[in-house]
């Protein structure tokens, strides 16, 4: 055997194509969509019910209701108390989880294939006939209030909440936390939960997703058996327009006296998931701050040592979610870190990226997709996105080709269009006394100092 040639990276072997799981779907008479994808080599099934009951549907003044409703599902059915529900699942080794995001609510379980029938029967009972006992809903509401309180003391959570508040106009739902505000949640009652459930948890806007050791025939049979007699109804509509709150770049310092780090968020209104620029944006953001070797991380971490990590993301929702750059930096370098981050944004806007950088970002994104689809839970979640955003069933199969079409010109174009450096909300959670002066001296925009409301 020859001595290894170590001075250059070895060439890859022949590529082996990834066979992405195929999605198959059926529609039941009551409108419920059943989706199955066979995946994995272990005898496991993940079952998820996705309903059109996200926080974007919270009624006026009742922010946090979608979250509370999803969490309250498992607190009792006509036949079982909350504790009996928990026992019934967990003796099967099953953990029931339900949560709402902005666009949808979902409940899911993962279960050994041989126990799918009893587990799914119980799952159906929980999501179809919750009774929302008064004392359980009150307990969960109080926990939600306490969580809101805790988020004010936890710098990362506070930074997300404040960034949303400063990026979006006050009437936009995305301006406030998904779990609601102290005022809105204090007012939530059991009857609100029940009304929200009745209006939004409907088979005709829901999907039952079954992933793992299962095929579409069995999925349809199970769906029909446990959800076939779930009566449909007319769903309400949710409409709002997303408007930004910032006219010209502004720095918002939220005072946290004695803070040894500043949590920085540089934000703007981003774009909606269905936007035609989605794939160019993914590539552009990967170059800016979406990978370890992105420009922001190489600058703020590897070149300057300001932070443990810097990244950026477009957060995609049905309506334009936020674009955010984030980093936690040592207090004494706060202004310099903001300056470097703004420099990277401006550079990408002005000069775009090279062919080599674009290709590396495309290859990274295409390569990691299979790694993000290793478990039945991961796959069910990604199928949930396909449903939520109305993407084609061939989405995974088309993913590589969609990325391959992105050129350096596209990257430059979407950087110019979607990184709007003149109207950013720059949020700094830190020690105002130490950071305000240097931030003002940057001259990028007015500096407002805010206190954390108790």
């Amino acid at each position, binding site marked *: 055997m020859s001595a290894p040639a170590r001075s250059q990276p070895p060439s890859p072997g022949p590529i082996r194509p990834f066979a992405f799981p195929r999605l198959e779907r059926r529609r039941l008479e009551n409108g419920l969509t059943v989706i199955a994808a066979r995946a994995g080599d272990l005898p496991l099934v993940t079952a998820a019910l996705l309903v059109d009951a996200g926080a974007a549907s919270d009624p006026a003044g009742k922010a946090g209701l979608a979250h509370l409703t999803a969490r309250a599902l498992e607190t009792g059915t006509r036949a079982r108390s909350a504790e009996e529900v928990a026992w019934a699942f967990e003796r099967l080794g099953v953990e029931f989880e339900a949560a709402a995001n902005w666009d949808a609510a979902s409940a899911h379980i993962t279960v*050994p294939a041989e126990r799918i029938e009893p587990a799914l029967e119980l799952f159906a009972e929980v999501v179809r006939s919750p009774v929302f006992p008064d004392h359980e809903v009150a307990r969960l509401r109080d926990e939600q209030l306490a969580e809101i309180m805790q988020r004010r003391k936890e710098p990362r959570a506070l930074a997300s909440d404040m960034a949303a508040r400063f990026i979006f106009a006050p009437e936009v739902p995305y301006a406030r936390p998904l779990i609601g505000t102290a005022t809105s949640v204090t007012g939530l009652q059991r009857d609100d939960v029940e009304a929200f459930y009745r209006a939004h948890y409907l088979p005709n806007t829901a999907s039952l997703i079954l992933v793992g050791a299962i095929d579409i025939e069995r999925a349809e049979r199970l769906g029909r058996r446990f959800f076939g007699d779930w009566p449909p109804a007319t769903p309400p509509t949710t409409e709002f327009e997303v408007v930004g709150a910032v006219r010209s770049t502004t720095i918002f310092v939220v005072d946290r006296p004695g803070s*040894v780090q500043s949590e920085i968020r540089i934000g703007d209104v981003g774009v909606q998931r269905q936007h035609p620029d989605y794939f160019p944006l993914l590539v552009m953001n990967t170059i800016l701050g979406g990978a370890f070797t992105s420009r922001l991380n190489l600058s703020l971490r*590897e070149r300057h040592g300001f932070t443990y990590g810097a990244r950026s993301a477009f957060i995609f929702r049905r309506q334009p979610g936020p674009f955010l750059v984030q980093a936690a930096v040592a207090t004494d370098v706060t202004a310099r870190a903001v300056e470097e981050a703004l420099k990277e944004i401006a550079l990408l806007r002005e000069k775009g990226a090279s062919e080599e950088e674009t290709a590396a970002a495309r290859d990274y994104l295409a390569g990691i997709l299979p790694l993000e689809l290793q478990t039945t839970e991961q796959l069910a979640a990604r199928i949930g996105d396909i449903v939520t955003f109305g993407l084609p069933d061939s989405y995974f199969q088309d993913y590589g080709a969609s990325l391959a079409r992105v050129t350096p010109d596209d990257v430059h174009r979407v950087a110019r269009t979607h990184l709007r450096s003149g109207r950013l909300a720059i949020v700094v959670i830190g020690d105002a006394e130490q950071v305000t002066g240097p931030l003002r001296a940057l001259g990028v925009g007015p500096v407002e100092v805010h206190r954390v409301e108790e």
Partner: protein
Amino acid sequence: MLRIPFERFRLDNGLRVILSREPSAPVVATNLWYGVGSRDERAGRTGFAHLFEHMMFQGSEHVPETAHFALIEKAGGTLNGSTWLDRTNYFETLPAHYLDLALWLEADRMGWLLPAMTQAKLDNQRDVVKNERRWRVDNQPYGDWDERIQAMVYPPEHPYHHSVIGSMEDLDAASLEDVEQFFRTYYAPNNAVLTLCGDIDPAHALARVRHWFGEIPPGPPVPPIPGVTELPPILGAPVRQVVEQDISLPRVYVAFRIAPFGAADYYPAAVAAYVLAWGKASLLYRRLIRDLRVAQDVTAYAFPIVVGASMLVVWATARPGVTADALEAALDRELATLRNVDAVDVERAVNLIEARQLSELQRVDERADLLSMFTMLFDDPERINTELDRIRAVTPRAVREFAESRIVEENRATLQYVPRK
């Protein structure tokens, strides 16, 4: 019954190699465990094992600075490393046809790290790690709990007395000479386990491992873990600390010394953690959250660590209006009931552990890490298939006996966080 296949080999230089074929997706997980962690740090150099891990990503003789991350990401892979009490691990998961790339990178830093080390790189990564400490510990509510709990459960002469992240002063003191000495002492094929899991042909993979790693010379014998590693089974007397912090809700941690991971006595403790706080039918969720409404959340965790003793840590955050003392008293009463635990509680816990384990094993990176772990800690990769048997063998009586001997006042470290006035 699990049947994860693997083959094991040992190169002439002492490198242990585990190969596990899982062909359902064309990806491969590379996982390298070095038998060195914060337990091996000497006085005045806490945090060094972790700082050193950062230096491993700064290039080596044939790999330019930042190329390690750049090459793997460009290949469509993910990578990282982590440092803990007993070990440091490095891992890449990437498309299977890039196997040689991962092996080349890992071999280069195992064999040829030092020529690439500079003071500037050390100073940069020292700043990064100090920011990691601020981010995880100093600027985070309750962020120093593990540091405080370790210092209470293990005496100063024990290698688990100090935290993985280390102190700012010790990080400041770290020098390039320390980097060189640490590398020569611990980073050698005879102190490492390399696992490949995924779409590989084991014979071909072994040939590639020999190709890249075969000529790296073995290091000297690894020195024994410093300090006093033997410990009495229990603390002997209760210890407690009350810490004021800028938090909104009090939180109480209680920790108990338990048998080390891998010992027969460890498994009842692992099951007890699930009985106590995993799932909404767990003992503490039922009582403290649902019935009494004194807690906002509950957690229990048995540490999988092996030197002298491990620990079971249980914590709960108070509901608004509930004091730390009231929460602690309620927590105590519930912990006492573990001595009479019902069979159904144990059955529930075992089933949850089993399901969770099966679910995690869907990931090739998780399989690879477990194979490396069981080989490094117990010289027994087959434990990936048999570990669940040890959990299933735990009887209600074993949990009761565990509670009687270990969940006792003389073995208790208590840490209260209370809001600063």
